[in-house]
């Protein structure tokens, strides 16, 4: 209780310097918040991309009903398959004719249907995992009378790369700005610690434990971090509000979503980073010279 009183008193005493620290911390946390906001929305957009991903299973002309039923039974049971569509060789020819439109005459004179029956498989977005999809493709390839399995390998790779790239970049930026918040609270508390060095020496001589000496500083760093977090949360709200206001020229902005739990937790993130910075700043307290 005494430590809390001491910390609040000190925060008020140096309120202008502390306000600057809070603004600096808030700036760092705001950038961190914007990165998380962007990542969240990119992930959301990326999560819709698998819906366009299809696997085409081409069956041999010799495929019997039993072979087709076997494949469909397997697809039904698979937890990652969203849906599938069987296209008989007759339907495939009809579709080809339809897609060729005016050039359909190319097919004239062909007596025998040259196409193969196939099954088009779509994957659930929530289950879109490279290993799981590859496992499914390998299993289908190994089934009897399956001639070939064709899938959009490049789309598949680009979804993977995009998500991975954004995550890596985001993590890098988050780490960088977390460190900057730690550094701001570190330097604020370090300066304070030097200024109060004489007082701390007196406390040590009077028999104060390290906890008693450290706690006001850690409380101070934590409060600065938490206040910075609150300010950053408010700024992110404002930022997203303004961004969504540009609905007309850029319509997709209206669909952007703010991850609310993250905004709510930002003051706690600030508090934790502030406490970490202060703890590092205090270093090792020594009672004795060698």
């Amino acid at each position, binding site marked *: 209780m005494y430590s809390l009183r001491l910390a609040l008193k000190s925060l008020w005493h140096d309120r202008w310097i502390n306000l600057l620290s809070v603004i600096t911390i808030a700036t760092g946390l705001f950038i961190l918040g914007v990165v998380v906001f962007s990542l969240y929305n990119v992930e959301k957009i990326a999560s819709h991309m698998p819906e366009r991903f299809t696997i085409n299973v081409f069956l041999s002309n010799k495929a019997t009903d039993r072979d087709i039923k076997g494949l469909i039974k397997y697809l039904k049971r698979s937890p990652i398959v969203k849906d599938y569509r069987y296209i008989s060789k007759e339907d495939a020819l009809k579709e080809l004719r339809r897609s060729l439109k005016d050039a359909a005459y190319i097919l004239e004179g062909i007596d025998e249907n040259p196409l193969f029956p196939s099954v088009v498989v779509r994957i659930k977005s929530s289950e879109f995992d490279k290993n799981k999809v590859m496992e499914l493709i390998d299993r289908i390839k190994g089934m009897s009378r399956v001639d070939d399995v064709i899938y959009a390998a490049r789309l598949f790779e680009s979804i993977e790369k995009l998500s991975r790239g954004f995550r890596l970049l985001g993590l890098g930026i988050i780490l960088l700005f977390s460190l900057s918040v730690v550094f701001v609270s570190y330097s604020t508390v370090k300066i304070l610690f030097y200024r109060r060095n004489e*007082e701390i*020496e007196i406390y040590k001589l*009077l*028999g*104060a434990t*390290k906890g008693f000496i450290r706690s006001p500083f850690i409380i101070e760093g934590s409060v600065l971090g938490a206040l910075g977090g609150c300010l950053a949360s408010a700024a992110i709200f404002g930022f997203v509000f303004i961004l969504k206001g540009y609905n007309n020229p850029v319509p997709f902005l209206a669909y952007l979503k703010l991850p609310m739990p993250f905004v709510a937790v930002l003051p706690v993130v600030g508090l934790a980073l502030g406490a970490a910075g202060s703890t590092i700043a205090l270093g090792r307290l020594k009672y*004795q010279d060698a």
Partner: protein
Amino acid sequence: MIKFNEVTKVYENITALRKVSFSIEKGEFTFVTGPSGAGKSTLLKLIYLAEKPDEGSISIAGWETLSLKEKAIPFVRRNIGIVFQDFKLLPNKNVYDNIAIALRIRGVKESEIKSRVHEALKLVNLRHKTESFPSALSGGEQQRVTIARAIVGEPTVLIADEPTGNLDVDNTAGIMRIFREINAKGTTIIFATHNMELVKNTGLRVLKLDNGNLVRDERA
């Protein structure tokens, strides 16, 4: 109570104390005298654990200081009240808070702190200065606040490093009277001074240091 056994302390090739041995009993009033640089402050620092001896051993109230873990030091220090020549008061706190801090460190309740601080202020005759800040006090008054802070935690040992060094004759006499009163209540006192006039005819024990050596241990 306090036992030094062949204690040597060296600072960068300068021997501050050389094989010093003595023991002080509970409730004793002991002067540590000697010229500047004789090793008086070093001896006191070794008692309140601000320094470690290079050789020999020290025991305080049965604790061997060398085997003491660092986290135990604050708890040992709470049994040792310290009075400094330069007072070491907190300039941004008033007299009450300067004394109360010694009890807050110990986790004493605020209601108890109030009565104990007033008791300590009564002993040093400063009850009327509770709200004053150190800068508004005379040297003698500041030293009395330091004494009040040192005794408010009821330590078993009170260490004073040249407490009258900056004071005039009247204030010195007043401070000495307070120390004798505290000692009469059973507190062990170790009082370092280079002022031999203060020691003369007191009938108290004197440890005289010279150039790091204990050259005399007798009654004044």
